[in-house]
């Protein structure tokens, strides 16, 4: 049985930026089964649908998972009110396909936009100093996880849209420069679709393999209800794949975006 539904204790919870929370959950057998790029589906009290949140850290030894989420609406607001010591109802680990990790000595460029940063941390930890992390945010008050990325040993480039922290500009500008200075073995990205769309074309131009993590509204979270469709190309034909089961990670070449 790959999936588990259960109530697990929150062993730490803190606010790490305005309306952004960092939580660690003790769930040993889920942590044991989880891989980088997967997500947990969380029940928010009083809401019909669970909220999908990426796994930001897997500690198999201590049997914990870490998640980082932003309050976007009423459901994530309710989740943000859970306190240390309380139980959280999760279904996990979900996602039929996580990130493909190459050997640690390969060169990786890892790009996170805003709340797309959390799932990128385990990738940075895998490649360590062979990784370049390009981490983008709206402004200084939205910046998260910089200490963690630095601790992974990766080379970190922080960008903000308004220049209030790190360099001013978009992650795609930083990617263009990074690609000029040498061709990595792989690019990973998670963030808003405009950003992903641009990165996919940059990767294609540079001839570098690229994986992206997608978001879509979900029902079951496991592949049973087909609501989380995203447009892809399969065997030369357009196919609506499902983010929860076929992803959330996809090869850049498979993904189609609306114009």
């Amino acid at each position: 049985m790959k999936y588990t539904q259960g109530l697990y204790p929150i062993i730490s919870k803190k606010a790490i930026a305005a309306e952004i929370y960092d939580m660690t959950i003790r769930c040993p057998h889920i942590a044991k089964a989880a891989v980088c790029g997967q997500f947990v589906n969380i029940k928010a009290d009083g809401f019909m649908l669970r909220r999908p949140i990426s796994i930001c850290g897997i500690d198999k030894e201590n049997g914990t998972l870490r998640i980082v989420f932003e309050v976007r609406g009423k459901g994530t607001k309710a989740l943000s009110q859970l306190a240390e010591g309380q139980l959280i109802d999760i279904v996990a680990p979900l996602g039929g396909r996580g990130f493909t990790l190459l050997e640690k000595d390969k060169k990786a460029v890892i790009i996170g936009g805003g709340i797309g940063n959390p799932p990128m941390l385990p990738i940075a930890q895998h490649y360590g100093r062979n990784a370049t992390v390009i981490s983008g945010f709206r402004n200084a008050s939205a910046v998260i996880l910089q200490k963690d990325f630095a601790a992974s040993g990766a080379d970190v480039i922080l960008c903000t849209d308004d220049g209030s922290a790190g360099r001013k500009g978009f992650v795609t500008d930083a990617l263009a420069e990074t690609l000029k200075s040498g061709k990595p073995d792989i690019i990973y990205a998670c963030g808003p679709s405009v950003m992903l769309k641009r990165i996919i074309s940059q990767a294609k131009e540079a001839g570098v393999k690229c994986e992206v993590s997608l978001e879509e509204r979900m029902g079951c979270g496991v592949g049973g209800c087909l609501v989380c469709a995203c447009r892809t190309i399969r065997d030369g034909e357009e196919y609506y794949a499902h983010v929860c089961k076929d992803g959330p990670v996809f090869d850049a070449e498979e993904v189609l975006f609306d114009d």
Partner: protein
Amino acid sequence: MTDMSRLGIDFAGVHFKNPIVPASGTFGYGKEFEEFYSLSELGGISVKGTTGTRRNGNLPPRIAETPSGMLNSVGLQNPGIDHFIAEELPYLKTKDTVIIANIAGSTAEEYREIAEKLDSTDVDMIEVNISCPNVKAGGAAFGVSCEGAAHITSIVRKATKKPVMMKLSPNVTSIADIAKACEAEGADAVSLINTLLGMRIDIRTGRPILHNNVGGLSGPAVFPVAVRMVWQVANAVKIPVCGMGGVSSWEDAVEIMMAGASLVQVGAAIFNDPMVPVKITKGLADHCNEKDIMLRDIVGAVKPW
């Protein structure tokens, strides 16, 4: 171990070890949920609605949350009947549970073709969806008039000897009349309710949340409507009724059975808790053991004023 022996139900000539069946479209072809529990714990499975050929379905977003419920506009994405028979059914048949094929067509001819193909397979029952609100042609169009419902029933009836269960739309003036029309054409059972047509708008963008603009409402929000409709239909026909719409607990299952359902499907509640079908079954067993009753004895046991 809970004693499950009081839950058996004979429904349209098919024996179910318990009356709890995941609803079509919420449970795929079951495989994914084997990662939570054995499918053999379920009374049956109503599989994803299947059409004559592969359908891609509607553009996303296909789901919107609502107070105590949700809207969906999947639009019958499915790999087509031949794929179902060749690739999904053999695996499902290795499970000790009743397999209900759920079918839909854009034309009467498409319903006939699918039913004929299923006739020579070992599915246990055919559920005929004449009530899907999310496809443009066919679908719900047949389910909203007595003539349309009767027509599809008679076509499917002639195409197969399998038990035929017509799945009814709640988006009608008198669901009891539609049920009677199906019964008259030889339906072995009816199931209800499919989803109620609804809509949500994102007030910041002015855009409907669903790309299809409108979609089907299900979940606890529709439960009282389902109970009422099951009760009306059960009083109008002699064939058995499979009830669904918002069932999320064993108490809900008892309630809809008291209204007249002898089989119960569970849909949207699975999204809130994938374990809910087995939790309901266990709750029903505890209830029957405690009260020293057979579950079938509560079917239609409501005492109306």
